Structure formats: C-alpha cells, structure tokens
C-alpha cells in the first residue's frame, strides 16, 4: 500500500506560520506547523481551545481575516502552493478541491435559502452543469449521507431540520464537488453522542470509498482514537507530537499527550477523581520561552526554556527534552 506514498500525498503543510498583530504585540497562533495527509487517510488534530488547531485549518483554506495573516510556510495541495494563488484562483479551490465542514451545524446553513438552492449553487460555482443536473447531483449527495426521502428534503428550509440532519446536509455539500480533501472543524461537538457516532462512521466510509483525505479537528481524544489513522497533538500553536494513532495513544512521548490521555474519562477508574493537567493553557501572548508546555509540565527542567528539537522514531515525531515511555531518556545539548 505504501510503496507510492509520496504520490499519494494530497496536502503537505510545511513550516506554516500564522500570526495576529494586536496592540499587545504579535500573537503566533500557528507556529512552524508541518504535516501531510494522504489519499483516503484521516488525520486527527487534537488540542485545547487556543492551541491553534482551528487557525491551522483556516490558514489552509486562506480564510484568515485581518489582523491575522499567514506569515510564512507553504501549503501544498497536490504539489501546488495555495499561498501563491490569487484570490480568484483560491476561490476556485475552496469548496471544489478542499471543502470545509464547520462546528455548528445550526449556523452554517443560510436560514433563508432552501436546501436545494444552497446545494445547487455550491455545484454551479465550480462545475458547468445545468440546474436540473445540479439538482440531481444534490439529491444523490443527500442520499449518500444517509438522508431519508432526499427529494422531499431538497425543498425544505434549514430550520425544519435537527442538528444532526443539518450536519448531514453540510457533509453532503462538502462532498458535492468530490474534493481531494475535507477539513472538519469539530463537526460533531454540537451533536448528541449517538448522532456523533453515526456521522463519524459515515464520514469514515465515505472517505475510504472515494479516497478523499480528511483532516478532523477536535478537542476530544476519544473521537480520534477509534477513527483517525494519524494524529497531531497541538499545544500553544505548535505540533508537540504526531504519529500513527495507535502508537501515539499507546506510547505517548510528550507529557502533554500523556496528560490528555490520562484525563479522558474512559481511562480512569470508577470513583477515582479524574486526572487533571495542572493550570490552564497560557494566553498566546504570554507563552513561556522554549517549550510552551513547560510551565504545566511535571517533567520540566531548566533545559526546557530552550525550544527542543524534533525527535522521531519512524512516523512517530515529538518535541520534548524529557519524553515519556522511552527505554532510555535521551539528553540534548
């Protein structure tokens, strides 16, 4: 499977930098972030709010509004750097080659337009098809995401749908133009657990079948655990650890990843208080020098005041001077 994996790479993000110019100084919301996704692969990006995971997604889509700006790096979609494209060229990529699904399904559909109008305009913005054909494609897409009676649903307005149904519509819209990549920004956070499970399962099947790459952004490690192929853990605008999901979860090397795993409810014994990572994430304006996690890290020492280099073992990559679960602790400097 992996003998041609270079050619299979859909998206490669290299040293991406995104910053906000504020009165208090420059906030580096996304800092030297690099990763890649292959065809049919699901990449989970996990982090707390403010870790830069959503901003990474918005940077890939170039949906950053001032005072934010992309300050450096490359975003290669099938080898083409999206940061070099003109606004009009970028518009043709959005919704066409890369689709995005947002967090709140109650808000992402226009309340005054019918479902068919919204789906047909998404098709006709990128494909030279007539209205009748676009409507047919829209109905097929609804059927594909498991919407019962799709023909009837086309004539409905968003407010007539439940949250889960709306998210299905949003997913159907994302699938319309058969994109190479779909970016999902916490799309199941606002949904019931049962609906969440269904949607995760459907997304997984759809991606495997069509070969669409998927970036799944979430703060919920449990969602990613059974769903994604690879995992990036973000903290303070940086990726602190990444690798195959099973490997990272079984043997986390970064203390932050280990803390996240330890504090997820299912891992704890009944009746015992939940594990907590002490303190809360510092504001991006007040990040400590060196490793951003060192002020909350139980293993931190003086050396952590300088930025650790990237360490790797096969696919498993981390940034820490004092990694956990290592046969012998490495020393630097």
């Amino acid at each position, binding site marked *: 499977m992996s003998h041609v994996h270079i050619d299979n790479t859909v998206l490669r993000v290299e040293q991406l930098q995104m910053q906000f110019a504020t009165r208090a100084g420059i906030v580096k919301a996304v800092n030297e972030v690099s990763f890649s996704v292959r065809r049919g692969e699901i990449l989970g990006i996990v982090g707390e709010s403010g870790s830069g995971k959503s901003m990474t997604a918005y940077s890939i*889509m170039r*949906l950053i509004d001032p005072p934010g700006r992309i300050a450096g790096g490359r975003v290669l979609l099938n080898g083409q750097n999206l940061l070099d494209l003109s606004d009009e060229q970028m*518009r*043709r*990529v*959005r*919704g*066409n080659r890369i*689709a*995005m699904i*947002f*967090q*709140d399904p109650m*808000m*992402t*559909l*226009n*309340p*005054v*337009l019918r479902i068919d109008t919204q789906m047909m*305009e*998404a098709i006709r*913005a*990128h494909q030279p098809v007539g209205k009748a054909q676009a409507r047919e494609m829209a109905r097929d897409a609804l059927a594909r995401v498991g919407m019962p009676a799709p023909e*009837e649903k086309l*004539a*409905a*307005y968003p*407010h*007539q749908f439940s949250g889960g149904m709306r998210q299905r519509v*949003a997913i159907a*819209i994302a699938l319309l133009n058969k994109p190479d990549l779909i970016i999902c920004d916490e799309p199941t956070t606002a949904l019931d657990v049962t609906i969440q499970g269904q949607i995760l399962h459907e997304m997984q099947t759809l991606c495997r079948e069509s070969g669409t790459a998927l970036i799944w952004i979430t703060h919920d490690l449990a969602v990613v655990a059974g769903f994604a192929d690879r995992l990036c853990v973000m903290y303070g605008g940086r990726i602190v650890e990444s690798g195959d999901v099973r490997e990272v979860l079984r043997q986390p090397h970064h203390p932050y990843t280990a803390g996240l795993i330890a504090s997820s409810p299912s891992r704890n014994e009944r009746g015992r208080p939940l594990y907590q990572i002490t303190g809360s994430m510092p504001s991006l304006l007040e990040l400590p020098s060196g490793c951003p996690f060192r002020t909350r890290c139980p293993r931190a020492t003086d050396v952590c005041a300088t930025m650790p280099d990237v360490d790797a073992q096969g696919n498993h990559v981390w940034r820490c001077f004092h990694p956990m679960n290592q046969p012998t602790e490495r020393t630097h400097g």
Partner: protein
Amino acid sequence: MEARAHIETPLQAFLRQFRSSKLAVLGSVLLLAMIVAAILAPWIAPQNPYDLARIDVLDARLPPGAMSAEHGIRYLLGTDEQGRDMLSAILYGMRISVFVGVASTVLALAIGLALGLLAGYVGGKIEGIIMRVADIQLSFPSILIALILLALLGPGIGKIVLALVAVQWAYYARTARSAALVERRKEYIEAAVGLGLPPSRIVFRHLLPNCLPPLIVVAALQVASAISLEATLSFLGLGLPVTEPSLGLLIANGFNYLLSGKYWISLFPGIALLVLIVAINLVADQLREVLNPRLQAL
C-alpha cells in the same frame, strides 16, 4: 403531496404571524383601500381637479353636500377656493403623496442598502467614507436639508422625490451596515466563502436577504415620514406646483379659511393624511414585531 403541504415557506410563516394582530390587519386593509383609491383616482373621482375647464370659480368654497350651480354634481366634501371638488382633490392629492412616499422610499432604500452592505461587508476605508458622510447628513434636521435642496432645485414631483431620497438614504445605509456587520460574522457566510462561491453571490444571495428584515421595518416607517415630510414641504409652499396639489398643499390652501367657519377645505385632506400615516404605522409596527429576530423562535 400531503407531506409537502406542511413545509412552510418563510413567506407563509411571515403572513401567518402578521395576521395575529387585528389592528395590523385593519391597518393594512385601510392602507390597501387608500392606495387603490389613489391609483384609481382618474376613474373614480367625480371631477378632474387639474382640468381648469371643469372647475368653476362660482362653485368656490361650497360646504360639504352642496350642489353645483351649473354642472349638476354634488360636492360631497365641499369645494376649495378655486371651486375644486374636495373629494376629487383629496383622491388626486393622495395619488401624489403615495407616489412621492413610495418612490422616494424605494430609491433611498436601494441606494442606502447598496452603500450600507458595501460598507459592512468590505469595511476599511470605503466603510469610513460612506459612514462619515451618512453621519454628517444625519446630524442636520431632515426638514432643513429638504428645504435647502428644494429652494435650490425649485418645485416639481421629481425634485421633491430627489430631496426626500437625499434626506433618507442615510437611515438605510446605517441600518444595512449594522445588519451586514452582524450577519457577515455568522458561520453561514464563512461557509459560503469556504464553498468558493463568487463574492457577488455571497453578498446578494446570502448577505442581503438576511439583512432585509430590519430594513423593511425602517422602510415602512420611512414611507410614513416621507409622506408627512412632503406634506410639510408642500404646506410651506416649497413642494409641488399649485396646479397639482398634494395633501399638504390642500391643507395649506384651506388654512386661511379655517377660522372663518370653512373648516372642510383643511379638515378633510388632514384626515386623509392622518389615516394614511396611521395605517402605515400600524403595518410597520406589526412588521417590527414579526421580523424582530429576538422574538423569532427557530
């Protein structure tokens, strides 16, 4: 078909909610009747008040219900100083008032909406320029601006519409901008951008319809204020030519006779103006109730 029957379009939902107030229904019926009467004035009025050949000075200032000496028509609401049938003059006057009110509102709404959306969606320098001009405009009393403009332009229906548009566009621009600022931060706009829709489509199909509810309310109220402003200007002699009197001018014509017992020349056009404006306000109030997003349960 049974299943589709209960899918309510926004328009149907709007009508259902609008009907819930009896007063608003009464207002809209009155308003509709007056507009129809105004439009049909040339066919239903007993006399053409603009046709000097049909007007007889001998019939001047007759009380309501009097018969014409020579023409054999009964003046139901009396006549004015030139012998014009008041009922006919009011119908024709309403025609002008309604036309001026609606035309100036539609034009001002179109201009204000376009500028306000532009300011709200694009932002930056363009927003600054548009909104400062609107602020300066709004810092003067509207009657003052209209008076100055009409004094410069001279009388005429087109010119009074122009003056009213100049006075009113800023209200729409402000409302449209604040609505656009709220709406463009919502996720559906971001989703539309994320879908790669062309910018013009995002502004006109997604942003504009969602900005309309507050503008419809403002427009409904502004029609009434345009009509009364036009009446005020005509009353002051700056609006329309004497040969084509609007309601305001009719009131002004009878003003001199008010204290000499000939009340009807001013009173009836006054009542017509009052009913017209109250009817519009009743409709506008209910529009505000129905379209208020905070009262809308989704």
